[in-house]
């Protein structure tokens, strides 16, 4: 598993807020993604109905997950492919290594895949003498930088163009050092030239999957660079890494969900490439892999079935929730400290690494509800974050000071007479402390609030006590 830094969320976010480069890069998320999505949806009146359909399709698939997974496996095998079941990261990595070793693989090209991040596949392959090469441009950049994705569809969104130019200069030493790198096109062409050779030399290609289609035994990826196609057609062996909830019953179901996926993600009607792979190369095919393997990863997902978190398994990883999240906009993806950032990460991470480690994430939300508003699969993200908070509360994982405050307040809120007395004392006291001013620059009990904001002072006297005095006949 990738190293977990979620318990340090607070420190991570403090650092992120001070990182000027990162803050500049995050402006891109705040503007671009949101405007493009809004525009593409305005152009499609049936978008809301499509969302309902997409939700229903996935709900149905999840209700019959075992049935569809088995049907999928049967189709893949019938077409000459292999299906491997992996309970966790260790099993999944072992399966990849076995397949690679059988063909003496030296290099492996990779299409974009978040679950290979989840199981820390690259580090594992390197340790075992196999070189993984990320072929999605964003992934390639962060691989050079020794980083992990900070966004599930735009992995290098935290990096600026100038940083990329520097990284390329450091990594591509065989190219003339004085070459022009001012335009994004130059960087793109340079990466393209380098990756082209890697595609041809690779022994194994690994891709993720956006969908697994039970009816046909097909795995589907969507990309904008075509790197996925080269990854899976050029090498002798194609490995598809997919988590079990990617299943949909039919091709028709897949195409329905595709209509909400790209629009929600990047505001495109469709991604540039939608690639379907069904088994290894057939006799009549001109090209394609000789071996086709699918590794189906559970890694804790089946535990979500039948719980209040089942809806999360509908997620199609479009990234709309983080694109619209004010917290993500402020701190970026790395602050979340593990693989999945933003609202979807705040729900998924505690499930996959434990709520004791991922507990900050579902708390770091204002519950503004914008994530749920834009989620194409209508996943009630805030509600599920609240469920995690409930689990934390039950297990006494909340800081004890916070818990004491909360319980004292709740105790009073249930005792109106005491509450009235206390609130009158507090408002009067604060009024006196304000000495005629409308706000506090500092306030002992609210130090964290007043570090960068003033605290408005109460007007004095509570509403209820004033009303009681002024309008005793209108009291209940």
């Amino acid at each position, binding site marked *: 598993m990738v190293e977990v830094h979620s318990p340090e969320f607070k420190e991570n976010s403090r650092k992120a807020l001070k990182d000027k480069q990162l803050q500049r890069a995050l402006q891109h998320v705040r503007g671009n993604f949101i405007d493009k999505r809004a525009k593409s949806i305005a152009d499609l009146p049936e978008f809301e109905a499509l969302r309902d359909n997409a939700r229903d399709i996935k709900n149905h698939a999840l209700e019959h997950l075992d049935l569809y997974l088995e049907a999928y496996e049967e189709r893949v095998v019938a077409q000459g492919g292999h299906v491997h079941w992996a309970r966790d990261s260790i099993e999944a990595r072992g399966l990849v290594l076995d397949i690679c070793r059988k063909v003496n693989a030296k290099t492996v090209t990779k299409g974009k895949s978040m679950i290979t991040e989840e199981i820390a596949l690259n580090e594992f392959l390197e340790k075992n003498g196999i070189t993984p090469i990320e072929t999605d441009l964003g992934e390639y950049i962060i691989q050079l930088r020794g980083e992990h994705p900070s966004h599930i569809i735009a992995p290098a969104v935290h990096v600026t163009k100038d940083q990329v130019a520097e990284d390329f200069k450091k990594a591509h030493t065989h190219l003339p050092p004085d070459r022009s790198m001012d335009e994004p096109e130059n960087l793109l062409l340079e990466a393209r030239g380098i990756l082209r050779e890697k595609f041809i030399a690779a022994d194994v290609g690994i891709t993720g999957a956006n969908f697994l289609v039970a009816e046909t035994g097909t795995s589907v990826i969507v990309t904008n660079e075509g790197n996925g196609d080269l990854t899976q057609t050029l090498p002798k062996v194609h490995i598809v890494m997919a988590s079990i909830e990617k299943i949909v019953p039919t091709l028709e179901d897949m195409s329905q969900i595709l209509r909400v996926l790209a629009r929600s993600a990047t505001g495109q009607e469709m991604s540039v490439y939608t690639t379907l792979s069904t088994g290894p190369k057939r006799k009549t095919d001109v090209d394609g892999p000789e071996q086709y393997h699918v590794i189906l990863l559970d890694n804790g997902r089946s535990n979500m079935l039948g719980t209040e978190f089942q809806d999360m398994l509908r997620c199609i990883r479009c990234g709309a929730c983080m694109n619209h999240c004010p917290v993500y906009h402020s*701190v970026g993806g790395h602050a979340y400290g593990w693989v999945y950032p933003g609202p979807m990460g705040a729900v998924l991470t505690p499930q996959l690494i434990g709520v004791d480690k991922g507990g900050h994430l579902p*708390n770091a939300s204002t519950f503004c509800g914008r994530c749920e508003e834009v989620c194409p699969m209508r996943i009630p993200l805030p509600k599920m974050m609240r469920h995690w908070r409930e689990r934390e509360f039950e297990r006494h994982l909340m800081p004890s000071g*916070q818990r004491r405050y909360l319980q004292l307040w709740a105790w009073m809120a249930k005792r*109106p007479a005491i509450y009235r007395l206390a609130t009158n004392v*507090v408002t009067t006291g604060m009024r006196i402390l304000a000495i005629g001013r*409308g706000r506090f620059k500092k306030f002992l009990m609210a130090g964290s609030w007043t570090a*960068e904001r003033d605290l408005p002072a*109460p007007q004095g006297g509570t509403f209820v006590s004033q009303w009681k005095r002024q309008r005793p006949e*209108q009291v209940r």
Partner: protein
Amino acid sequence: MNEKLRVGLFVTCLVDLFRPSVGFAAAKLLEDAGCEVLVPVSQTCCGQPAYNSGDRADTREIAEKVITAFEEFDYVVAPSGSCAGMIRKHYPLLFAGDKALEKRAKALAGKTYELVSFLTEVCNVTQVEAQYDGVVTYHDSCSGLRELGIRDQPRELLATVKGLKLSEMKNADVCCGFGGTFSVKYPDISNSIVAEKTATIEDAKPDLLLAGDLGCLLNMAGKLKRQGSNVHVRHVAEVLAGMTDKPPIAESRRDLRGSDG
């Protein structure tokens, strides 16, 4: 026939504590709309702080007290989308499975409204008798906007305030970073979000910032004042009721005199 609607005013804990004048403005608006306003003195809070902290047991106990205090009225009105949303959308979920209480929770949910939407949707108020000479910008508080669909109602009524000019800010529907306990648990992030918000507020060049939730207003006012802004901040009910005699949020008569000089 034509009997006055009996409205229980759920004033919310923040208005009760910080800004009673919002409660009186709400009462005036309701009475102008022909309602009889009653205030149960046993009210404390809707329970959101406990609910959003994962403490369901305390939330249920608090909610049960709210139900008991307010179920006698024709309607329950709160000058807050957040608290009204809590009662409308979340109370029934809290008691799911508990037949008797679920029924009562649903009944209360069905007759609980946020103030401005109650005026326009139930009382059919189309205009108010009020005057405010100045430029106003309006922030859509998240719960009101997304749980209750409050966006046009306050703008429609504000348009009938004499002398008032509305200058929309960019991203009026984006969170201000308050988030209740969030602002205390993650003050740095909350501050970063509110700083983004105050920048868009300033860009709209208003004299006055309005919103329908006091929590957001305290947060935005606190940040604006720390930044030395001249933008005043009030709850939308104060302007709609024509009750702007009290100093704006985070200001006092003494502060106002100071800023004149």
